[in-house]
């Protein structure tokens, strides 16, 4: 690597300088967690069996319940946006949603559009394949993602 040693040192110095500026660590480049807390959580919901049951404006299901608890913890109102997975994934990618649920698993094809939470539940389909269930968050909003991951892990522990 040779001469790049000084470049590394420079990068390190600039990162450490910036360390004083942020509050949360990890931080959100686009400030999702700060905006949502005591504000509005925009949740895309795609109908999928017991996980998400969309009936008009009413969203039910195990994932919807989890999201309600999470929003309550943040002091946030929920703005439900029903839709199909690919429309919701596009909206998430373009910053129009904060969270997408729809009984997604960690093999979801939308991993380029959003970040995956930790798997908070497992299920087997009729063919016997294992699914590890996740939710979809905006790419790189790491403070928000970590907050949600912590919530989901706590919820998983409590069963």
């Amino acid at each position, binding site marked *: 690597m040779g001469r*790049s040693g000084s470049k590394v040192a420079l990068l390190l110095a600039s*990162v450490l300088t910036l360390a004083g500026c942020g509050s949360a660590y990890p931080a959100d480049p686009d400030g999702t967690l700060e905006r949502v807390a005591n504000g509005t959580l925009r949740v895309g919901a795609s109908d999928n069996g017991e996980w998400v049951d969309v009936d008009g404006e009413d969203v039910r299901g195990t994932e919807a319940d989890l999201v309600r608890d999470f929003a309550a913890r943040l002091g946030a109102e929920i703005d439900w946006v029903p839709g199909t997975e690919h429309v919701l994934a596009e909206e998430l990618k373009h910053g129009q949603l904060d969270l997408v649920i729809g009984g997604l698993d960690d093999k979801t094809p939308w991993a380029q559009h959003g970040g995956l939470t930790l798997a908070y539940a497992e299920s087997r389909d009729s063919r016997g394949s294992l699914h590890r269930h996740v939710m979809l968050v905006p790419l790189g909003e790491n403070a928000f993602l970590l907050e949600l*991951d912590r919530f989901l892990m706590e919820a998983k522990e409590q069963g």
Partner: protein
Amino acid sequence: MTMAKRDGPVRFGHTELPDEQKEALRKAVKFEWITIGYLAVSTALVFAVLGNSQAMKAAWVEDVLSFLPPISFLLAARVIRKKPTEEHPYGFHRAVGIAHVVAAVALTVMGAYLIVDSAIGLLGTEHPTIGGFDFFGQTIWLGWMMIGAMVLTALPPVYLGLIKLKLAEKLHDKVLYADADMNKADWMTATAAGVGVAGIGFGLWWADYAAALLISFSILHDGVRNTRAAISALMDKRARTYDDAEPHPLGHRLDEYLRGLAWTEAAQSRIRDEGHVFHVESFVVPAKGRMPSLEQLEAAQEACIGMDWKVQDMVIIPVAELPSEFLPGATSGGER
């Protein structure tokens, strides 16, 4: 690996290694196995926390590529022991050069690939997503695990590199040298990746790509430098020191010795580096056009071979004048 028994003779082709080189080879083989063992652990560790960080990906790829030089070295160290055969009268020393080219090209290709991959991520403003990690029931930020992995893997290769560097000089082994040199610089890769991940934590999503690009350029740089050195060695460039820093001083010493003999008027050698050992062709002009006796020629050859273990395959060719077509740049006195 059936390794050299400590006491039996160890050969590179038909060159029997002196004790110092025998010991260096034994150590080099040992430390290359240690390197492989270490890499197996570190690549597994880094893979476990790879996440979505481009810098971690680049560091991991570099780790995986680091397997190539030790494997090349260990394979070559076996092949070159074979004695020359009728079909391979020069022996099998070139195995080292081939191993060097293969490792160098792999570095170059992966370096270039990672630069393109990182640049696409940077230009597409793909924010790296790093969430929680289930650490014995506690959900902690995966970024901390990445930084921890980088801290753990930063220093051991530096230690291995420094040891192998010394052995490379003793053995005149360029693959070992390239390997050691890369290990020695490994801490910078780990630091860059760690800093990139720390940057993500501060919300600086581009820090990850900046670190990844830095690492990728260093891989490419290593690759290009090694490819160049390996190819020119295979093209019979004149023998240079183990680190390619300068022409090997042995050439000068051989010429000085031959010129100093009572029966010679001028002498000049051309030397190619076969990997560890040299092939030497020394052209000598006998004084006053009088042919030397066979005894004189043989004594001169033996004295030259005695100078350095790398000289074994040597021929002395008496000529009327130094052949400029074989010795480009040679003057009548053979001075450089």
